[in-house]
């Protein structure tokens, strides 16, 4: 079954594509790239449950499909519950001898709205019940599929269609919900953040999340040229800046132990990241200073947690 591999430095990546060409993602979509990499890391022996959203819409218009692995979409907010049923179903069918024993990973895929807003109850339930599944949240920081409406994952100061910047508003007035920390609070064995600008880190984390026994959560930063308003060739650069400014730190939490994967001695100023995108264009210096202060504080907290577990 094993196909060809491509060698990039020390890394071997399968040449197989599990999300076929012909999909309808926007040009330069960071999420499409992240999905492609994640699927390469997971391989063939998966069943993917996909929430309603960009990925679902861009890969599955009847009568065609981009999916070369078994895939199911049912609704928006129930993906973790559907995954629960798949995982429990496979396990019991194998236990009862109705299906040959084999390792099939159940993977749930959803956007930030499907995860941190409407799907959080089903996700919390599935984490708590300790289903053996991997949940991938592709975070493009708003409801992009329906036209850039704010979600609880939209960052402070971003302008969206339902929290627009205006004479009396800076746009989003709340801080981004910390979904990875919410996952950690469920005491699941593996939580990580990833970004397609760091492709091997992303693939390693998805692979690790897939191999872990029990629930795993990988939160994937997914730059969106359409919603964030940047040129279509900038996704990688913007992802890198998000990490280098500390806005989206790359870390993993294995059995409660924190580890920062990319830790620069000096973070770049958040302004370098904010100025690349139209959604932050209206922000004045005082707001940028406020964001800087918040990012510094959050990053320090994260570093302190990682320090607790440093060798």
């Amino acid at each position, binding site marked *: 079954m094993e196909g060809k591999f491509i060698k990039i430095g020390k890394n071997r990546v399968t040449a197989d594509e599990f999300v076929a060409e012909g999909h309808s993602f926007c040009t330069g979509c960071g999420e499409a790239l992240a999905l492609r990499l994640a699927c390469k890391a997971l391989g*063939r*022996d*998966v*069943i993917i*449950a996909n929430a309603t959203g960009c990925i*679902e*819409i861009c890969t*599955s*218009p*009847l*009568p*065609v*499909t981009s*999916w*070369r*692995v*078994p*895939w*199911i*979409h*049912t*609704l928006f*907010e*129930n993906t*973790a*519950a*559907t*995954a*629960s*049923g*798949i*995982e*429990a*179903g*496979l*396990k*019991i*069918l194998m*236990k*009862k001898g*109705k*299906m040959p024993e084999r390792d*099939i990973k159940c993977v749930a895929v959803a956007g930030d709205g499907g995860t941190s807003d409407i799907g959080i*109850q*089903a996700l*919390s*339930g599935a984490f*708590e*019940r300790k289903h053996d599944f991997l949940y991938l949240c592709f975070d493009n920081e708003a409801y992009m599929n329906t036209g850039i409406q704010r979600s609880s994952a939209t960052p402070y100061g971003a302008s969206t269609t339902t929290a627009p910047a205006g004479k009396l508003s800076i746009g989003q007035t709340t801080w981004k919900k910390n979904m990875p920390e919410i996952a950690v609070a469920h005491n699941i064995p593996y939580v990580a953040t990833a970004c397609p600008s760091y492709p091997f880190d992303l693939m390693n984390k998805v692979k690790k999340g897939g191999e872990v026994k029990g629930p795993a959560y990988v939160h994937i930063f997914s730059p969106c040229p359409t919603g964030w308003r940047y040129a279509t060739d900038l996704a990688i650069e913007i992802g890198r800046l998000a990490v280098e400014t500390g806005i989206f730190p790359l870390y993993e939490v294995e059995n409660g132990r924190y580890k920062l994967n990319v830790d620069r001695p000096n973070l770049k100023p958040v302004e370098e990241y904010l100025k690349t995108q139209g959604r932050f264009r209206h922000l004045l210096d005082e707001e940028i200073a406020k964001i800087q202060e918040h990012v510094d504080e959050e990053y320090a907290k994260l570093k302190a947690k990682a320090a607790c577990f440093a060798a």
Partner: protein
Amino acid sequence: MSKRVGLEASHAAAEAARMADVDVIAAYPITPQTHIPERLAEMVADGELNAAYIPVESEHSALSACLGSAAVGARTFTATAGQGLELMHEVVYVASSMRYPMVMTVCNRALSAPLSVWGDHSDAMAVRDTGWIQVFCQNSQEAFDMTLWAFRVGEDSRVLFPVMVHFDGFNLSHVTEPVILPEQKEVDRFLPRFQYPFALDPDNPMTHGAFGPPDIYSEAKIAQEVALRKSKAVIIQGFEEFGDIFGRYYHPVEPYGIQGAKTLLLTMGSFSETAKIAIDTKKDKRESVGLINLRLWRPFPFEELRQAVKDAETLIVFDRCISFGGPGGPVSSEIRSALCNEEERPKVVSFIGGLGGRDMSVKDFEYVIDRGREIVEKGSKELFETVGIRGKVTGIRG
């Protein structure tokens, strides 16, 4: 040997799920359904049933988990009631539209507000058009029988639809009655192993639940409608096979003493048994009355119904649900539309009662029959009348 035991309908349904050797149960507790998941959880805990019991955090997730387990080919069961069915409402449509066989017991319960844990058919009527095969039970034996039958029919490769088995909350769910339990080998003969032909499988990747653009959605929905209607042949075949093995024969429309009867009463669920006593009482007084127990609700048994009522002068339909601002009780308006183009047809009278656990006595049904006949004789402008409700309700005009 089969055995005769005392079981409440909830435990009878759970026992049927056990004998069907279900693989996955995903359920969230809600009164008056609780005895079903409790009993199943107990069976799993005691090793009497080898199944995955998923204690989900809501009914929405209960049915969503059922979608997942059915999609990989597991025999799947759930149960709910009232608000629970409403919370899972959007998932109910998806289960049938994605053609996932599974069985759901609904212990019929009234809908809030005001909150009521007691029985009526408001929950069932709210999911009337969701594309599930739906049957109603009169007693605990039927709760067992219909559950077993539901797996057999829904899983048939000519059908592949989920099946909802309705029985009345408390009036049935919590009432212990004699139930004949068959031997396991008889159940195995009736119910073959489930082989879902489109199971999600990495060796044969399939896409389930792709979205339907306007150039394909209509055809997909019409195909679903045609398939549901065609399932009636298998539904009837399933009733016959069930009867041949277990000795109890069921029908989509079940007449009781209708031969030559001028006035017919139509009921669904456990109240049919009370109504039968009212029919007996009236027959003792030589009144020309009979009863129709409507068992199969979806797909609607048009032919069987027309055949059963064609010689009657009056058909009184009793509903346990209000269609607010509509043409009468939901069952009565369906019956009217089923008969409206028939040349020979009875006059249809609509009654609503038994809401939110309000009991209907034999005397209440006698009143319904008497008043129904009077309405036909004297005429009435009311779209429906009520029974067992304090005060006189008038002015319900079309």
